[in-house]
């Protein structure tokens, strides 16, 4: 701050002229100002004042009075602080004025009329400044300046590097260095310099009147922001399709491993549901609803132009290809939501496109950044389960209910045996039996660590960005963790003025430890996340010597799941390279050819070792399955870009291109049994080979595309796009599809009738219509195959696997979008309201066949699904005071999904696919509660009559489905001086899920050697006449001649809506004076908490799980972790 003040002395006039004092601290403004004293004397003879109350209206009658005195009077009348420079007004002479009740502005104008002064009102402050005219006059004398230098800083006084500095006639240009300094030679005195940098308001100054320092003010308005669109970039103001943008800085340092988890709640209409809480695990992203019954509903991911293969890398634990990218390397994420925006990607774009742009170097001296955070991850919830005594009583009760002829003593003895306790316990021993906390052992606090380093810099011809990072996140279930080492580089080189090269590489090595079932949902006995809550509380986890209490035939599941999860291996090691290279050549000034090559390469190795000390391993004396998968995904495209301005009013840009993509996955796996001891964990040590398998799968895609954009006076925008795409996945007769899109925008703020209303900066109406395709089906869906892989009596067999369908072709998504973008009141309020209608037809449908044909299904183009929705994105700057800012983003999307038709007039193909209902509607028999007379479960049959025995015919549609009705997020950011606090709430409402984990707890009440929930125990039926919804436990799980009491009925459909406090971050940015002492350009400390609290009605660990991939329900789902991390960022 002292440095700033010193600089101010030198350039005070310019400072007055150009800068807004509000942006600086008042103290610094005051250094050379004399604050006028409030005096009451002042020439009462000539002057009438009314100062009874402060007012913004002025009454003044003066003649030949020094300006200083008049200003003093104004200050008294209005209560405003009037600031000026003594030197400035000393020679102005005397003034005269005569008016009554004049509005402040008019009064000031009247007073200063004819003087070389102007004024500026900032809040409650009136600044007196030299008028521009007087400046120009003063400067006219000057001619040539050999050399101009200066320093550019931001509002906080921090130097800005990489700022473009140039004359507006483009005769000279440079960029600022690390210290924010620049130097230009051969500048004429009347030249005007322009200072610009992305994210800052552009400013221009005459070269001979540069303020020092030059202060760039951060842009609140993002209309001029450059947005990455398909194969090109566009200014935000000219976008006509439906897009959302999430900036990398919005989720910087959030302790998540992949960007999908980071954007949850931040983009309207983009539903992000975490599949499991496994760190680095799978996530389901759904943009504008589910359009398909069987085909993939995942968006397409493109990283710096490279189309990622979004298949799960491994099924041994929950994995996610987006974890290859360090979220902190991301500059921005653009989400193309409607067909008009995404049709350029034709194939695969049906479910939207997510464009990820990583950070690039900026010209200037090299910058270094070090970032480190560390913290803990903790379980978000534990279930309340029974103690040993109650668990034994419950088992005794279940046995007696099943067989009333049993004596209570015999039942107790049996119950004790079932619970792994001596059957002859005395009452006293029983009462003091310890309760072992299995959940406490299964769910533990882990640690989280992230260290990263990056450097960037360059010249105006070349730039680089290099980063390296290490991330570790321990899950909260035994033996689940994630570790990633990541290296990233990006190079840009202008080889000649016409040839530009761009190359990038992202290398990552990920090691994930998982356990049984951590790939998704599980009913594995060895999975602690599944069994810990119902392991018998009577059985110790450890022996007295600290070893695991584990033996085959243990009560309950036969496993000590903590032991199995600890000693077994489920290690997935991924090595991934995402590389891109492109060369752009300017054929003409407005015609560029770009040749792009991208590769997404992965090698994934998984070790699945079953330790001989566990029941699974003991059978084989230990076994190891060693999987190796290699995936090579290559993309190339060749694009011509053309743009022209016909006059200043019309500009046109167009592109034409072709693209080829090939994706090949090869896999091999070997299993061997019989290891000498548990320490041996490679197949070399195994005595007995067991099986070897392998596979090859490949697909190719070829497409041609074109786009034309037209812009009339930044007011009317038109965009047309078309793509012709072929996919090897489709039948020989139907491989190619045509996908056009058209959209238009009209910024009404630019029209005359609104131009007057200068508080409206943008009011853009957009509409778009287009068709996109989906080929997310099996690589060989259309083909009829005999396949190898089976055998009989050790001889190879050929199995008829699939039915041929030569007509199988593209799924088409026709979507219409209408949106309104607005920005008003100097960007204080901005946002988007958007409505869409999306019809998915000729669905890639796994059409069920009568199995008598020898096949259970064939892939076919059938059915139609409609998604309708409304998305609202609302940004406000609630408070923008000198030191305090408060901004809010709120987004919400409402969605309605309906299956409109199937085929052959069918109403339903499977339970959850029914015409006239949303997809994934639950179709189940209705629970009728508990018969209060006998404690038995009752259900309704198809006719609505009470029954004890259900059949498939009793299932009815329930109007409850797993699709969300509405979802979104609320972000609030508060900043006060160097402090910044941001909070993100995420909500996902109106989804009903089958609570299969609750069903398990309900079911195991009847089983031997299990524990269950306290609430089930407390509310179970015990006495005739009791009204409850929890049936009596009965050993074996079913009353005689009845369906199982835990049959999958409406009883287990629960509301999985939730609101979650997803993130809180408190950061402190150290102030420049300290930084300059430490020689740092940036120093920030922060603390971040994730998943601090969840509001939900759901009974279970976590309502958030996405039924997708290997997640079929919530049984044994690894819950999300709550984490708290603290970190520091240093830049120098």
């Amino acid at each position, binding site marked *: 701050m002292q440095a700033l003040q010193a600089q101010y002395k030198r350039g005070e006039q310019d400072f007055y002229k150009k800068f807004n004092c509000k942006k600086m601290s008042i103290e610094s403004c005051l250094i050379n100002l004399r604050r006028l004293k409030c005096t009451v004397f002042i020439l009462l003879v000539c002057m009438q004042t009314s100062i009874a109350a402060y007012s913004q209206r002025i009454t003044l009658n003066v003649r030949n009075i020094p300006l200083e005195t008049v200003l003093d009077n104004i200050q008294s009348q209005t209560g405003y602080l009037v600031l000026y420079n003594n030197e400035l007004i000393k020679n102005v002479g005397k003034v005269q004025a005569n008016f009554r009740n004049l509005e402040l502005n008019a009064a000031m104008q009247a007073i200063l009329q004819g003087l070389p002064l102007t004024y500026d009102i900032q809040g409650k402050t009136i600044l007196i400044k030299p008028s521009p005219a007087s400046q120009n006059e003063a400067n006219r004398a000057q001619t040539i300046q050999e050399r101009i230098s200066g320093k550019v800083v931001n509002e906080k006084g921090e130097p800005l590097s990489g700022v473009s500095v140039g004359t507006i006639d483009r005769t000279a240009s440079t960029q600022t260095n690390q210290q924010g300094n620049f130097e230009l030679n051969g500048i004429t005195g009347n030249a005007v310099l322009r200072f610009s940098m992305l994210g800052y308001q552009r400013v221009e100054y005459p070269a001979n009147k540069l303020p020092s320092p030059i202060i760039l003010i951060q842009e609140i308005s993002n209309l001029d922001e450059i947005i990455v669109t398909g194969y090109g970039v566009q200014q935000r103001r000219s976008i006509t399709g439906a897009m959302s943008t999430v900036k990398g800085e919005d989720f910087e340092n959030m302790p998540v491993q992949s960007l999908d988890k980071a954007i949850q709640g931040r983009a309207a209409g983009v539903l992000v549901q975490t599949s499991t809480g496994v760190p680095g695990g799978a996530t389901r992203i759904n943009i504008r609803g589910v359009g398909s019954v069987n085909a993939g509903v995942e968006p397409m991911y493109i990283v710096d132009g490279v189309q990622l293969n979004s298949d799960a890398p491994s099924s041994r634990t929950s994995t996610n290809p987006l974890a290859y990218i360090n979220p902190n390397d991301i500059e921005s994420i653009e989400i193309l939501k409607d067909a008009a925006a995404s049709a350029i990607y034709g194939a695969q774009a049906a479910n939207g496109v997510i464009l990820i742009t990583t950070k690039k170097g900026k010209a200037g001296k090299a910058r270094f950044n070090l970032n480190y955070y560390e913290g803990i991850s903790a379980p978000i919830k534990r279930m309340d389960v029974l103690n040993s005594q109650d668990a034994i009583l419950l088992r005794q009760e279940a046995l007696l209910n099943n067989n009333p002829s049993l004596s209570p003593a015999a039942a107790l003895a049996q119950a004790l045996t079932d619970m792994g306790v001596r059957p002859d316990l005395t009452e006293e021993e029983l009462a003091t039996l310890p309760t072992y906390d299995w959940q406490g052992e299964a769910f533990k606090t882990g640690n989280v660590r992230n260290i990263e380093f990056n450097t960037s810099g360059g010249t105006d011809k070349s730039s680089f960005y290099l980063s390296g990072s290490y991330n570790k996140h321990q899950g909260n279930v035994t033996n689940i963790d994630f570790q990633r080492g990541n290296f990233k580089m990006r190079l840009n080189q202008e080889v000649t003025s016409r040839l530009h090269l761009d190359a990038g590489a992202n290398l990552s090595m990920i090691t994930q430890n998982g356990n049984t079932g951590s790939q998704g949902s599980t009913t594995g006995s060895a999975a602690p996340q599944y069994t810990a809550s119902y392991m018998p509380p009577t059985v110790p986890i450890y022996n007295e010597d600290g070893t695991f209490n584990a*033996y*085959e*035939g243990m009560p309950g599941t036969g496993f000590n799941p903590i032991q199995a999860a600890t000693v077994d291996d489920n290690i997935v090691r991924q090595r991934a390279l995402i590389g891109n290279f492109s060369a752009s050549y300017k054929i003409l000034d407005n015609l560029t050819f770009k040749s792009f090559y991208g590769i997404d390469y992965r090698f994934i190795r998984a070790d699945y070792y079953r330790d001989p000390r566990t*029941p699974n391993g003991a*059978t084989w004396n230990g076994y190891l399955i060693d999987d190796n998968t290699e995936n090579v995904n290559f993309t190339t495209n060749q694009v011509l870009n053309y743009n022209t301005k016909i006059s200043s009013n019309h500009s046109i840009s167009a592109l034409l291109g072709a693209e080829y993509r090939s994706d090949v996955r090869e896999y091999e796996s070997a299993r061997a049994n019989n290891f000498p001891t548990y320490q041996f964990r490679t197949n070399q040590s195994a005595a007995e080979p*067991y099986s070897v398998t*392998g*596979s*090859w799968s*490949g*697909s*190719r895609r*070829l497409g041609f595309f074109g786009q034309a954009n037209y812009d009339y006076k930044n007011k009317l925008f038109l965009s047309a796009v078309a793509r012709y795409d*072929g996919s*090897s996945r489709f039948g020989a007769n139907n*491989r*190619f599809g045509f996908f056009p899109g058209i959209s238009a925008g009209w910024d009404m703020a630019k029209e005359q009738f609104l131009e007057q209303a200068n508080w409206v900066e943008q009011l853009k109406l957009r509409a778009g219509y287009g068709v996109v395709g989906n080929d997310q089906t099996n690589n060989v869906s259309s*083909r*009829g*195959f*005999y*396949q*190898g*892989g*089976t*055998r*009989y*009596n050790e*001889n*190879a*067999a*050929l*199995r*008829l696997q699939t*039915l*041929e*369908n030569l007509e199988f072709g593209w799924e088409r998504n026709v979507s219409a979008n209408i949106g309104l973008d607005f920005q008003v009141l100097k960007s204080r309020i901005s946002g988007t309201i958007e409505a869409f209608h999306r019809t998915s037809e000729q669905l890639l449908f796994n059409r*069920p*066949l*009568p*199995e*008598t*044909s*020898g*096949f*259970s299904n064939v892939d*076919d183009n059938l059915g139609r699904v409609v998604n309708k929705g409304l998305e609202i994105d609302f940004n406000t700057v609630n408070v923008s005071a000198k030191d305090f800012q408060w901004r809010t983003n709120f987004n919400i999307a409402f969605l309605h999904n309906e299956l409109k038709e199937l085929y052959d007039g069918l109403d*339903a193909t499977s339970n959850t696919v029914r015409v006239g209902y949303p997809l994934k509607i639950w179709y189940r028999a209705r629970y009728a509660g508990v018969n209060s007379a006998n404690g038995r479960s009752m259900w309704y049959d198809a006719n609505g009559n009470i029954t004890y*025995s259900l*059949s*498939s015919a009793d299932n009815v549609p329930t109007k409850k489905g797993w699709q969300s009705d509405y979802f979104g997020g609320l972000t609030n950011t508060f900043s006060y001086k160097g402090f910044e606090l941001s909070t993100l709430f995420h909500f996902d409402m109106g989804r009903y899920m089958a609570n299969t984990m609750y069903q398990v707890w309900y079911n195991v009440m009847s*089983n031997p*050697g299990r524990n269950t929930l306290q609430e089930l125990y407390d509310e179970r039926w015990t006495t005739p006449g009791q009204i409850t919804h929890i049936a009596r436990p009965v050993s*074996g*799980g*079913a009353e*005689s001649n*009845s*369906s*199982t009491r835990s049959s999958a009925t409406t009883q287990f459909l629960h509301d999985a809506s939730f609101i979650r406090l997803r993130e809180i971050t408190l950061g402190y940015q150290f102030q420049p004076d300290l930084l300059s002492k430490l020689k740092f350009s940036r120093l920030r400390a922060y603390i971040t908490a994730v998943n601090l609290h969840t509001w939900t009605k759901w009974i279970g660990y976590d309502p958030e799980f996405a039924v997708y991939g290997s997640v079929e329900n919530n049984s044994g789902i690894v819950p999300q972790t709550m984490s708290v991390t603290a970190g520091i960022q240093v830049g120098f």
Partner: protein
Amino acid sequence: MSSCDRILDVTPKQSIDSRIALESPEAIRASLNSVYAYLRQTSQYGRDLIAIPELLADNTDHTNNPTELYSHFRNQPGAHMGIWGSSYSAINEINNILHVLENPPTGVSNEFKENIAGQAHFLRALYYHNLSKIYGYDPKASVDEVNYGSVPLMLAPVLNTDQVTYPSRASVEDIYTLIYEDLETAYNLLNGKTVDASNPEYYASAAAAAALFSRVALYNEDYDRVITEAASALELISGKFMTNSAYIAGWRQMKLPESIFEVVFHLGDYADPVNESLRVTFTSRQTLNATAFSNRGNVVVGADLYGRYASNDVRRGLFMNGLGRNASRIEITKFLSRSAINHDNVPVIRVSEVYLNRAEAYAKSNPAQEDLARQDVNVIRERAGLTPVTTNLSGQALIDEILLQRRLELAFEGHRFFDLKRQGMDIIKPIGNVRFDEPRILAPLPYTETQRNTNLKQNFDF
């Protein structure tokens, strides 16, 4: 555009286009191997066709730990066998093989063709007989008001969508006609031939066709045919019948010495040997000499069945107490990791059954043949170490003795439920009796199948 199209041609490396797949003898043989391999599935002989008929009937107890198959033990409605999809997949593969053999590709000799076709016909008969006895009533025991017929009869090959049909249920007579034809054809084509000299029992043979025929005819109460087919089977497999002294040892070998046709399991053939194999289902000992409990042993021997073996019956040696928490349970050790850990070959038809089929046919068809019936049942009794029955035993008592010996000899081999059902007998069991006229005697057709194909009538009350 044709060059673009060519860029999109991807040739897979692990599959072959179905139209050109069966163009060599090796491919045809490999395709037939797949038909055999379907028999290994858990829903077929891998477990269910052996374990569930015992659970549905009166031979078992359930330890309830885990509860897998407990609903079958309790005869809950719908708890039954489900072999629909896998059987029809196998049948379609058979139909395709037979179709190719009508105009065999070059390189296929007549001998090869007959050998393959003979096996294919045998296997089709086996699949249809199993389908018909699970989903429909047997020819001579039916609840007529709710008899909606047998299963659809599929004989045409399907390779593409145009060939898919929506059949209705055939009559049980039509199914039996096909089975008869197939078995006759199989017998004629295979007689005098050997598919695999070292392990003929793992494949169809003339003996297997005749033996299965004796069973099919017994279900059809076509007693004369039972007698003739049993005779021709026994003629072909003379010397296989296990002796008293070799009986237990026979059950400890990978291949049961008296098997006429058995499904072979080599290590790794089970998809889930740890949870679903017959070994883990029936016993808590992983191998004969095991001393520690091993999962799961959830289906054990019922007291009623065990009590019916005389103390000197050699077959009692197959019963042992379980280990660990099954220590007080009686378990059967017919499936005890005989092929490899948790892997056991499964006899589909063996010599003893042929004797018992014929004994029952003699006893039921003609009082004059009771002597022959006694001879046959005594073959079984004497081998078990029991005294032979004499002329004192005749009429219903003789039939009862034959049925008892059938129950005792073939216990835990998947016969009991079907033997009661084909005679229209009720199931008497401690957990609750099941009358023959109850709907739960029949398996429901797969619910989805009746939705997809509305020509199919679902069994009553499902």
